[in-house]
């Protein structure tokens, strides 16, 4: 039989079980969780329905629930303990926002005085008109005319980078772009990876020496774009509405386009091999791929991708 | 009181005539058919019983429908179905949902609004009823700003009945509520929209009250006083 494998083939995906006879089936549970010892620093894996510990001695956190005085896992992932709090972190999941997180999102809807933003979370985020910088100076008050021309700022489909400001009572997050670092995105492309692969870093704005800027949204949305020199970014006084809310890309030269494409492909390959992204890893991977002098598309060949990941492992 | 069918003429005449539900004054009395002779050209639009006030200034038709049409100043029981920024949307069984301002409660201020959850019951008064606008409710007296019994109804049970039954129970001379009150302590709120809230100390009392209301409802059993007494005796309410 011919088998076709779709591109991002992940490690350990296919699992073949042996044929089991009911008569001979013995419970060969490799117990990860038969001891209640949380003091050891080893990583414990757990599955939904697994008992973790007594609920009298410990508190249940995310990814767990209490059943008959026992803390039980509700997701498959790693067990984490902070003092008396037991949580289970799922490996692949949607983005769980926290206040202060940097996210990249896409406008889905324009509503009265607010935008709805898809940010890979369980509900669309809300960007209030009062939480964006309006043209004409940072300090300018919101006018009624602004409410009528909200699509001049953000339109359905626009990408933006923002910070999580607060939560509503139903758990939806509220964003703000009240900083010159935030706002509409241009001159690049979006890559979507599992949110767990984006770690919290000192700065989520990364500039690679090849003339590429990266914005690592904690929600797994990554913006790869042409480098903007610091001097090009106008100061606080010269807040330029034209530039901030422009829908036009600047001129991007051939080598930069190549670099953007290469970085994008590297991220795809790393995500497919479940490698968490950091600035150093991206830099090393970029250098490796240039060193190898492979054609850009070569990265998608399974052996090249494996070699890249292996080289990263050996360096780290 | 007489039974009237849609389209019949109503002999209402008064200098200060007020027409209630089910009555309509034709805009131009049709002289060719000689209708003008029969009064002011007032006809009925519903089947029911025709009533008028003692001085014949107010006329209305009562009938036994189940669909509630809001009218100003009537007390109703509603269910909160949505919380919005300033207030609540309330289902009162009418064609449209009603709105209830978060400030229309006793002691409510901009900072301190009542925290009603979706699914809560409220006893409220219709403050605005207009055919082209959605009805509005309030849970206090707009002048005194006192609750006067309006507000959230906690615990208890909601009985749905015909509108006729609601009106019957509002009549202080009707036998049912005193009869029930004689058997066990009982709290009740009667909404004109065919909803009656009852609360007692014991669950079986609430169930008994519920079943009696359903039995007496002219749209259902139409049981009389003696029947209810026997029915209550048959139920175990002690």
């Amino acid at each position, binding site marked *: 039989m011919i088998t076709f494998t779709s591109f991002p083939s992940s490690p350990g995906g296919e699992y073949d079980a042996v044929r089991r006879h009911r008569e001979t089936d013995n419970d060969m549970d490799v117990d990860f969780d038969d001891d209640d010892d949380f003091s050891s620093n080893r990583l414990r894996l757990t599955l939904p329905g697994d008992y973790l510990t007594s609920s009298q001695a410990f508190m249940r956190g995310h990814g767990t629930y209490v059943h008959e005085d026992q803390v039980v896992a509700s997701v498959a992932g790693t067990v984490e303990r902070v003092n008396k709090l037991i949580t289970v972190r799922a490996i692949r999941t949607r983005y769980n926002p926290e206040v202060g997180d940097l996210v990249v999102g896409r406008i889905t809807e324009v509503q009265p005085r607010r935008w709805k933003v898809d940010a890979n979370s369980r509900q669309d985020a809300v960007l209030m008109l009062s939480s964006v910088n309006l043209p004409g100076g940072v300090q300018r008050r919101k006018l009624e005319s602004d409410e009528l021309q909200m699509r001049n700022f953000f339109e359905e489909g626009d990408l933006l980078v923002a910070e999580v400001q607060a939560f509503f009572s139903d758990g939806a997050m509220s964003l703000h772009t009240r900083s010159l670092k935030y706002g509409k995105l241009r001159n690049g492309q979006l890559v979507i990876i599992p949110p767990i692969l984006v770690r919290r870093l000192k700065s989520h704005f990364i500039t690679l020496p090849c003339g590429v800027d990266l914005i690592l949204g904690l929600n797994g949305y990554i913006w790869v774009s042409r480098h903007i020199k610091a001097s090009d970014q106008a100061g606080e006084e010269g807040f330029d509405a034209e530039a901030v809310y422009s829908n036009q890309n600047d001129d991007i030269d051939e080598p930069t386009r190549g670099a953007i494409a290469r970085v994008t492909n590297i991220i795809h390959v790393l995500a497919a091999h479940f490698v*968490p992204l950091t600035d150093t890893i991206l830099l090393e991977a970029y250098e490796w791929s240039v060193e190898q002098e492979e054609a850009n598309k070569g990265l998608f060949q399974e052996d090249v991708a494996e070699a890249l990941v292996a080289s990263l492992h050996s360096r780290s | 009181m007489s039974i009237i069918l849609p389209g019949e003429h109503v002999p209402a005449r008064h200098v200060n005539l007020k027409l209630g539900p089910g009555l309509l004054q034709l805009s131009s009395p049709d002289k060719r058919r000689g209708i003008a002779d029969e009064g002011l050209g007032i006809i009925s639009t519903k089947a029911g019983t025709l009533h008028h006030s003692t001085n014949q200034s107010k006329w209305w038709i009562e009938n036994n429908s189940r669909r509630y049409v809001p009218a100003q100043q009537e007390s109703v029981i509603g269910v909160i179905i949505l919380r919005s920024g300033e207030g609540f949307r309330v289902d009162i069984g009418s064609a449209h949902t009603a709105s209830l301002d978060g400030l229309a409660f006793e002691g409510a201020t901009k900072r301190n609004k009542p925290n009603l959850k979706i699914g809560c019951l409220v006893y409220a008064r219709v403050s605005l009823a207009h055919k082209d606008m959605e009805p509005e409710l309030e849970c206090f007296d707009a002048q005194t700003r006192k609750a006067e019994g309006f507000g959230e109804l906690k615990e208890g049970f909601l009985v749905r009945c015909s509108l006729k039954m609601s009106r019957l129970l509002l009549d202080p001379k009707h036998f049912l509520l005193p009869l029930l009150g004689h058997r066990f302590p009982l709290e009740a709120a009667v909404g004109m929209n065919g909803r009656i809230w009852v609360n007692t100390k014991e669950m079986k009392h609430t169930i008994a009250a519920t079943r009696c209301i359903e039995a007496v409802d002219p749209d259902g059993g139409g049981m009389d006083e003696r029947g209810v007494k026997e029915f209550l005796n048959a139920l175990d309410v002690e």
Partner: protein
Amino acid sequence: MGSRVEILNEGGFRSDGRRQYELREVTIDLSQQGQADGAAVITHGLTRVMVSVFGPREAKSRSQTIHDRANINVEVAISPFSAGERRKRSRGDKRILEMAATIKSTFEPVVQTTLYPRSQIDVFVQVLQQDGGLLQGCINATTLALVNAGIPLLDFVCAVSGGVYSTSPMLDLTLLEENDLPNLTVAVMPKTGKSTLVTMETRLHVDRFEEIFKLVCSASHALHQEMKDAVRVRTTSLVTAMGTTQSNVGGDTMMDES
């Protein structure tokens, strides 16, 4: 039509060489499928079902939002080429609608929907090959896809089908057996042993029912083991992949399992 085929021969073997209480071979593939938040492909012998889960995400329409919990939306599609006879079923087919409603209500009490008010969880079930035990395949694949998507579940849900040939109970029926025998499908939550789903559509005496019902319940534990192992292998490989490059970014834990 099946009268020529011996359902259970004198040697105690079934038409495909299995014993009475033997389940068919199970394979589970949990690798990423497109943009789905979680996906699983399960095969029970020649029955093959793929499920993709999206969400929890913003509800598509306002009428589908529930103010205090997430809405689970299930859509089932049966590929026209999945059975011996090519046949296209419309989306409005009552049997498909019933199956979707069944899967939805099977998982509603298992998924912790109250954690995601006003959201929506989309479950897309695609039947690729069918050879009996369709519902069991759909339910098992949905469980695995939900686990894979990191959606909190109270427990696994493991479904197994069974039937009775005159007086002999049998497990995990093929299409051939399903057409000839009274059969039932049971979905069990192994931790408590309680079942969320029981369906039987053919006439069977109460006493026979009791026997096969209990047998199917116990068989589900064997399947639970298979499903747990698959998820564990998948999770371990992902954690390992993440862990090996994480030491230089301040990872504080290391795997001691390999």
